[in-house]
């Protein structure tokens, strides 16, 4: 009987684990061109792992593949000569790199590689540096093939490799107390694709500080063996979990239709399970963040709900959120397929929702970069910009506009407001264009790639409404999920969708808006220049034949002369809303082209407002968009009184110094 019960219990346990792996979307979603079967042994004391790998690669092109190119990104943390670190040897990501011990550096090495015919390819492998001339960079490995892969053919490669994590600088690494985040820990293929000119080849860039990742879709079957004191979370679903009885356990994960596989381990993680519809939620969080855990889960469910409603169903059945402890904080704030990392501190106030905002951001990446897998290096705006837009939308939907991010002691900031302000507050709006590779940004990546793009999308939403925006996003998502779209793919869908719903002129306007916002550094600033009232007089001079009768001028009514101006070089059509003293409301359509546009109207004007709904959020100064003669100036008085009052308090506090 006892055995019987145990058998049932084990069965339930196994079923429970396997239920995670039931595919909800059949058949396979992606072309599954690069598949990995990996087995890894973690030596946690030496922060090192040894692994074996079978890569199955399908050549889907009409060209023959003569070599493999692989990302070896842990080598970016191998020394100060790597392209990732070079130029920032003294201090990177707030870390002093000058006092690192040898064991603080990380690396990954292919020990052997063989093709399926048994040819040893190891001797031909070498590191290359296609992006710069840095001979010391070892982040891209080239392996010449003895047997080329013909079009349509599938090839298999077996490797053995060793990798050691660095003490975290950023992204991947270890912290003390056995904290590990394993990212780009295995030799990983680049993406075999056509370049802009239609030539097939490997897209496999070196690891650069300003850029993230790019990978091919496939299935990952990963077997992790490690000390049993570690609590583990990973991409994909847990297939089995076996205690090996020797102080180690083996966990097997499977992740389908994903572009990467990441995992984390730490002995002190709380493992919290929850569920949203078909999605099993796993949260790994250190005990000192226990009071924050409900905030993570709640906002994750909001994100799942919002994105399902406005973009499409989350196609995987697991999501793991890892909230790193302090020792692993530098590993946070990143996204990997079905595995997101957050960042928080003990006692974080409820009114400051950066924790939530971060989770929304990283989860939205599951859609943009995880499922719609753009090249994050060459066109980072295609994921970061989208994600910023959704981050702002989701936060404001669930936490309120103009207070979603901070709502503390009467001080309120909304996510979309902050995104806009990040762009508008740049000291040089012309620093760079948005639509360029990540490595070209010297600074202002966040302000341009994330915030300007997000704000541009927000403008399109405000101009054409939520429904149209949803349709645009959904159309793009449906068409390009599980593929690698480029900028033009999105731009043409945007024009198409807007044209279909709002007419060709609107489509052209959106095309122009996106072009100016993403491909130029044009600055948008519309302003009311002057509003003058002039007395109009009736006819003056002589009338009738031979001089006739002189008509006296007499004051009769007023006219208003309004001048609106375009101060920047960004051109967009706008509405000008005019309120007359008579109570009449006029809406004038202005194509926004002229530097100065003048309106002469009968009667007295009360107020003028360019773009009154504030659709054009890229306008760097919204305060100068309007003019009124009759303002309630209480807010100015209040602010001034408060300023002098706080100065009084400063005086009083300083009195204690003396």
């Amino acid at each position: 009987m006892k055995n019987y019960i145990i058998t049932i219990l084990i069965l339930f346990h196994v079923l429970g684990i396997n239920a995670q792996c039931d595919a909800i979307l059949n058949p396979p979603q992606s072309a599954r061109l690069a598949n990995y079967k990996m087995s890894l042994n973690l030596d946690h004391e030496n922060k090192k792992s040894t692994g074996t790998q079978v890569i199955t690669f399908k050549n889907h092109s009409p060209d023959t593949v003569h070599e493999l190119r692989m990302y070896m990104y842990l080598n970016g943390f191998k020394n100060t000569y790597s392209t990732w670190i070079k130029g920032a040897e003294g201090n990177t990501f707030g870390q002093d790199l000058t006092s690192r011990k040898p064991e603080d550096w990380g690396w990954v090495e292919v020990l052997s590689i063989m093709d399926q015919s048994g040819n040893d390819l190891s001797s031909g492998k070498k590191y290359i540096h296609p992006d710069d001339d840095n001979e010391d960079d070892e982040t891209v490995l080239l392996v010449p093939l003895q047997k080329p892969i013909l079009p349509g053919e599938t090839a298999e490669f077996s490797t053995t490799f060793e990798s050691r994590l660095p003490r975290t600088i950023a992204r991947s690494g270890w912290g003390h107390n056995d904290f590990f985040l394993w990212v780009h820990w295995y030799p990983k293929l680049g993406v075999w694709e056509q370049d802009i000119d239609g030539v097939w080849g490997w897209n496999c860039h070196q690891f650069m500080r300003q850029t993230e990742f790019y990978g091919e879709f496939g299935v990952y079957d990963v077997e992790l063996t490690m000390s049993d004191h570690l609590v583990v979370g990973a991409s994909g679903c847990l297939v089995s979990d076996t205690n090996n009885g020797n102080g180690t356990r083996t966990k097997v994960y499977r992740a389908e239709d994903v572009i990467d596989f990441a995992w984390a381990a730490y002995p002190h993680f709380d493992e919290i399970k929850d569920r949203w519809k078909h999605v099993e939620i796993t949260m790994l969080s250190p005990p000192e963040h226990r009071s924050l855990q409900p905030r993570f889960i709640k906002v994750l469910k909001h994100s799942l709900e919002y994105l399902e409603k406005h973009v499409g169903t989350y196609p995987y059945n697991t999501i793991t959120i890892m909230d790193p402890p302090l020792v692993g904080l530098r590993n946070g704030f990143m996204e990997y397929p079905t595995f997101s990392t957050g960042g928080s501190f003990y006692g974080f106030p409820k009114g400051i929702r950066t924790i939530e905002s971060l989770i929304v951001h990283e989860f939205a990446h599951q859609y943009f970069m995880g499922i719609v897998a753009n090249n994050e290096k060459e066109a980072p705006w295609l994921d970061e910009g989208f994600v910023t837009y959704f981050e702002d939308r989701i936060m404001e939907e669930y936490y309120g506009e103009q207070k979603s991010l901070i709502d503390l002691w009467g001080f309120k900031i909304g996510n979309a407001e902050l995104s806009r302000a990040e762009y508008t507050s740049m000291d040089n709006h012309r620093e760079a264009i948005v639509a360029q590779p990540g490595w070209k940004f010297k600074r202002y990546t966040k302000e341009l790639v994330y915030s300007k793009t997000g704000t541009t999308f927000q403008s399109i939403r405000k101009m054409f409404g939520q429904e149209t925006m949803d349709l645009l996003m959904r159309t793009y998502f449906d068409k390009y999920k599980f593929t690698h779209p480029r900028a033009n793919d999105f731009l043409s869908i945007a024009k198409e969708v807007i044209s279909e719903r709002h007419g060709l002129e609107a489509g052209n306007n959106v095309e122009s808006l996106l072009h100016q916002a993403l491909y130029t550094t044009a600055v948008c600033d519309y302003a009311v220049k002057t509003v003058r009232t002039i007395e109009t007089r009736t006819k003056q001079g002589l009338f009738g034949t031979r001089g006739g009768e002189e008509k006296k001028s007499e004051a009769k009514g007023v006219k208003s002369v309004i001048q609106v101006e375009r101060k920047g070089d960004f051109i967009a059509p706008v509405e000008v809303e005019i309120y007359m003293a008579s109570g009449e409301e006029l809406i004038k359509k202005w194509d926004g082209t002229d530097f100065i546009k003048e309106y002469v109207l009968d009667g007295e004007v009360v107020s003028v407002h360019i773009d009154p709904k504030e659709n054009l959020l890229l306008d760097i100064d919204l305060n100068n968009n309007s003019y009124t003669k009759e303002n309630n100036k209480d807010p100015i008085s209040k602010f001034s009184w408060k300023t002098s009052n706080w100065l009084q308090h400063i005086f009083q506090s300083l009195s204690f110094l003396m």
Partner: protein
Amino acid sequence: MERIITAIKEAQSLWKIILCIYAFQFILASTIGLQMMQVLDASLGNSLSLEKLESGFDYTVFTDFVNVHGGSFSVLYGQMRWMVLTYLIFASLISTGIIYCLIHKSSQISDFFKGSLQMFFKLFIVDVVFAILILAIMAISFALTGMLFGIAPTSFDTELVFLRWTLLISIIALLLIFVLTLWKIHIKFNYIKSDQRIFNSIGSGFKSFWASKWRYIAYTFFFLIISLILITMNYAAGDLPLFPMIILIQFIALIKVFWRIVFYKVIGT
């Protein structure tokens, strides 16, 4: 408690001096407030954005304003810095004047000025030395906290360790600042009360403070808590309509001057 009630009663009789100090602070602060009003009126006075500020703070209006007119802000900020530094000299005069009046049980403005000017120079030097010490304590504790923050991710298991250290540093710094403040008040009282040389007052001031140190520290805590409550009320008053807000915040500013005199009285006698 009885001591505080007596002090409140006695402080009331100094209402002319309280009004005088309040008026001085008010006028000084208003010069900045008025300029602020001009800057805001010139840049936002005719903008419809002002409507958004009627319900309180608006981040977008504020950032656009700062981005475009930030220059005029920094001019005001520069003025404010000088004003604060200059005020410190007056602050020394004021505290000496208050203590002089408390000792001589005088509520005459003329005595307040007489006392503050007569005793000013030597006590000003004491003030400067103590101010430097207090600022040094603050700087050291900030530096220590900053250093701990820097090493925290690689040296501490959790942020709780960092927070505990920060709390400990803050408490120690606060206590040291209390000690210096209380000691200084005692120096001033002793110096004005007797014809001691200033060096003798420094010694006797410490002795008289140290004799009942914990009681004095407790009073200081109490004083601080009431001040914090007043500040919170002042902050909350910001949501009121303009006129009631002005009345309330100015009343609180006045009360705080009064409360400080109560504190001197409690500590010094």
